[in-house]
């Protein structure tokens, strides 16, 4: 089959699925909504504050010694090892917490917490550090001057500076020397409506299922249900940043 034909097939398949989804929503009795349909945003529409993307991390399920999420993040975003962890960008790092009295150790991945009130945005002198309407905190590298105030301001040390000239960027994640960067919640995937961030995907693949991604505002989303059912914590809740990343088991 030629590639043109196969494209056309896919297109008609997509249209069929779209129509099927629309019908499903329409035929359901009044007052009943269909749960679990992927709500992909049309590419030409702006993100809105109706959504608030976030992560729920269950540190009880997070295996110590496993760094599948870190590796997946690096692969997905084209982050290569250059000089080692001292100076290389790290969008996620695995952290081990130890309770002083009991000696209990907890392992968890730590990344940008996508705060509602991000200190990195407050201190940015150029407006490069910003929070999208849907809660994802990003760096606009076009306006970032590399001053690194945000790195100082972030209580989670979630941001990294790119020290070296890069050449192997992937097309959906432009990165370059002289800019600060951090976890984007795989914003390219979020906008495409194509599933979980790379870290969550990798964690599920390892059968650890310690990470869950979703819309905190959507009361039918899995993450929202979990947050309602179980007690979760924000890191440094005392700072009142209302983080988009929540933890269980710490």
């Amino acid at each position: 089959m030629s590639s043109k034909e196969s494209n056309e097939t896919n297109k008609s398949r997509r249209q069929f699925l779209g129509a099927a989804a629309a019908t499903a929503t329409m035929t359901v009795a009044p007052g009943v909504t269909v749960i679990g349909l992927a709500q992909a945003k049309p590419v030409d529409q702006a993100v809105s504050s109706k959504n608030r993307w976030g992560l729920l991390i269950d540190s009880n399920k997070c295996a110590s010694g496993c760094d599948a999420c870190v590796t997946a993040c690096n692969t997905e975003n084209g982050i290569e090892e250059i000089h080692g962890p001292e100076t290389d960008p790290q969008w996620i790092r695995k952290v081990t917490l130890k309770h002083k009295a009991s000696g209990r150790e907890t392992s968890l991945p730590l990344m940008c917490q996508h705060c509602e009130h991000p200190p990195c945005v407050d201190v940015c002198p150029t407006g490069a550090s910003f929070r999208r309407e849907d809660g994802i905190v990003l760096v606009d590298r076009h306006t970032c001057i590399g001053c690194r105030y945000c790195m100082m301001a972030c209580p989670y040390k979630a941001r990294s500076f790119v020290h070296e000239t890069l050449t192997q960027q992937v097309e959906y994640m432009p990165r370059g020397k002289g800019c600060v960067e951090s976890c984007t919640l795989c914003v390219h995937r979020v906008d495409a409506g194509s599933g979980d961030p790379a870290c969550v995907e990798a964690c599920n693949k390892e059968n650890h299922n310690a990470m869950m991604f979703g819309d905190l505002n959507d009361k039918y989303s899995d993450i929202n249900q979990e947050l309602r059912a179980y007690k979760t914590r924000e890191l440094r809740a005392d700072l009142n940043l209302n983080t988009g990343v929540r933890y269980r088991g710490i």
Partner: protein
Amino acid sequence: MNKLLVILASMAVLLIGSTASAGSPKPLPNLDNVQGDKCVAPKEVIRVEHMEYIMHQRDETMHRGIRTSKHSLKGCINCHIVKGDDGKPVNFMDDRHFCNSCHEYAAVQMDCFQCHASTPTPGPVAAGK
């Protein structure tokens, strides 16, 4: 009169010397490397306006998550592929690269590719495509 001739002659020598040291002029860019039928705008328009288009799209994508491909840099890169001797698309360091061939000719520096990929990402691209 003789003095004037000497001055003129030495100026001519200097001139020739300086042009020779500047190297041969850049070749005319090849603008026919297009995959589809036509560009998103007529040639005359795109030559003058392309930077405005991608600048506008850049802010729309970055801040508002609008990812239409019509005026995206990724759209340009995926369409204007120039293949090298090894059959792979050349990157912006190569004189034959679509963007580079023209920018070299016009002596206009572009910073896009310090961060952006200048060739399509090969293989089954993750969800982000």
